[in-house]
């Protein structure tokens, strides 16, 4: 373990294990302050409560820091990597060093959200591990989170800081394994499953079924958004997944779930979280699904690909332009 500040020569993805407010402040404020004093752009994506506390602790130096509310940015965890991409591409020109703090996992996350947050933490290595140097600190509340969650943080982060000392994690899964196909099976729904097998001529039926179920479940205005997302994923099944697939719909406590499964093999781990390029033929379907839905789960299993789209009945306020709230952020979009 070392207490000396490291020199960052590549993407440094670091889990920061803390317990209680005092440890949180002791680990984050000096990190932010050192970055600001070195002239590094700093983005903090945290809960509003923590942002307010950090702003008080930082005093006037808070003016040099970008803040974003994780409850907005990371409501669907697949929207966090695009936010970091935007930060790095906007502020990290010509090798400028950068710092970020992002806490995507908190106790109240649902089991589905938690698993996608953990996938997100792994995919950060895939997204940035071979790019320019910058330092991302991910706080984990050891008081509130399960031991298994902390254990997984040690697998998804190359570095771990605890009690003011940092070390390399000896169970970090590495860059290659971080983006390997996600094969963790999804829990089977219990009851009330509506099912429809579809082929290329059945998209109208797919949309009709989703629309009817979504409207009767009370999704109202967002029914159209769910229909749009399901249609794109089903279109992918027709085009890349063997000409068709199976749609299943069921209701859970939080809302409606639409699952599309096919025989295709999904092997582009970041395609759902890369902002589409200007290229006309660039993939857009899964990106769109992530912007419209509250949670998207993609699994590559032995028998094919499964995509689950979750739509909550009472959605959090949605922010499509993730950094728009930051005081110092400029115009939208880096690409």
């Amino acid at each position: 373990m070392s207490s000396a500040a490291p020199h960052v020569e590549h993407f440094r993805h670091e889990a920061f294990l803390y317990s209680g407010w005092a440890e949180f402040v002791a680990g984050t404020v000096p990190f932010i302050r050192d970055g600001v004093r070195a002239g590094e752009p700093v983005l903090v994506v945290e809960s509003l409560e923590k942002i307010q506390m950090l702003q008080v602790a930082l005093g006037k130096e808070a003016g040099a820091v970008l803040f974003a509310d994780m409850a907005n940015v990371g409501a669907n965890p697949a929207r966090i990597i695009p936010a970091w991409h935007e930060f790095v591409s906007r502020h990290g020109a010509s090798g400028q060093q950068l710092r970020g703090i992002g806490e995507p996992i908190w106790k109240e996350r649902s089991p589905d959200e938690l698993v996608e947050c953990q996938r997100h933490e792994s995919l950060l290595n895939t997204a940035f591990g071979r790019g320019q140097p910058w330092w991302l600190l991910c706080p984990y509340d050891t008081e509130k989170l399960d031991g298994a969650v902390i254990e997984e943080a040690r697998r998804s982060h190359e570095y771990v800081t605890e009690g003011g000392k940092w070390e390399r994690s000896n169970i970090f899964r590495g860059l290659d394994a971080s983006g390997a196909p996600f094969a963790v099976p999804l829990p089977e729904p219990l009851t009330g499953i509506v099912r429809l097998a579809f082929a290329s001529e059945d998209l109208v039926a797919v949309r009709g079924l989703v629309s009817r179920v979504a409207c009767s479940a009370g999704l109202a205005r967002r029914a159209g958004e769910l229909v749009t997302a399901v249609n794109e994923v089903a279109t992918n099944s027709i085009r890349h997944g063997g000409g068709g697939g199976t749609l299943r719909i069921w209701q859970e406590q939080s809302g409606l779930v639409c699952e599309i499964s096919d025989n295709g093999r999904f092997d582009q781990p970041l395609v759902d979280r890369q902002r589409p390029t200007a290229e006309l033929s660039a993939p857009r379907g899964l990106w769109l699904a992530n912007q419209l839905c509250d949670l998207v789960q993609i699994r590559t299993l032995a028998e094919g690909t499964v995509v689950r789209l979750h739509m909550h009945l009472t959605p959090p306020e949605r922010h499509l332009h993730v950094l728009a709230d930051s005081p110092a952020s400029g115009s939208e979009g880096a690409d």
Partner: protein
Amino acid sequence: MEIAVTCRNMWTAEGGFGIDASLEPAIGGGRVYSDKRLVVTRTLRPYGLHFSGEIDLANSHAVAECLRLTVTTGADLHLDVSALIFCDISGIRSFVEAAENRVGGRLMLHGLPELLQTVMRVTGWADLPKLVICRCRRAKP
């Protein structure tokens, strides 16, 4: 008028698009494409096309073809999409492609439903120089 006649000739020459010649009045307006889910009609003032129904993987290539064959010489081409119930990404891509390939005038989308405006914004197709999302008419919810 001259342009419209040119288009009708092209349609006839092209064939294979379910063009119902009997529905197309002599002035060059009328139906230029139809299938079970989509009807595309020529509009004259402003000059362009009216879309009614649904566009998806099954007919987006036909939409692209309709747009390719609707020629204007430098003027804007107006698309009334207020009666579009559904349009997927492949359909929007057809509009974007047509706009990008235009020489001179722009492609004007009129009455674009709110959900499609969201989709175009999210997919990075909302701020293209040649594709204008026109606010002239209240979009349907």
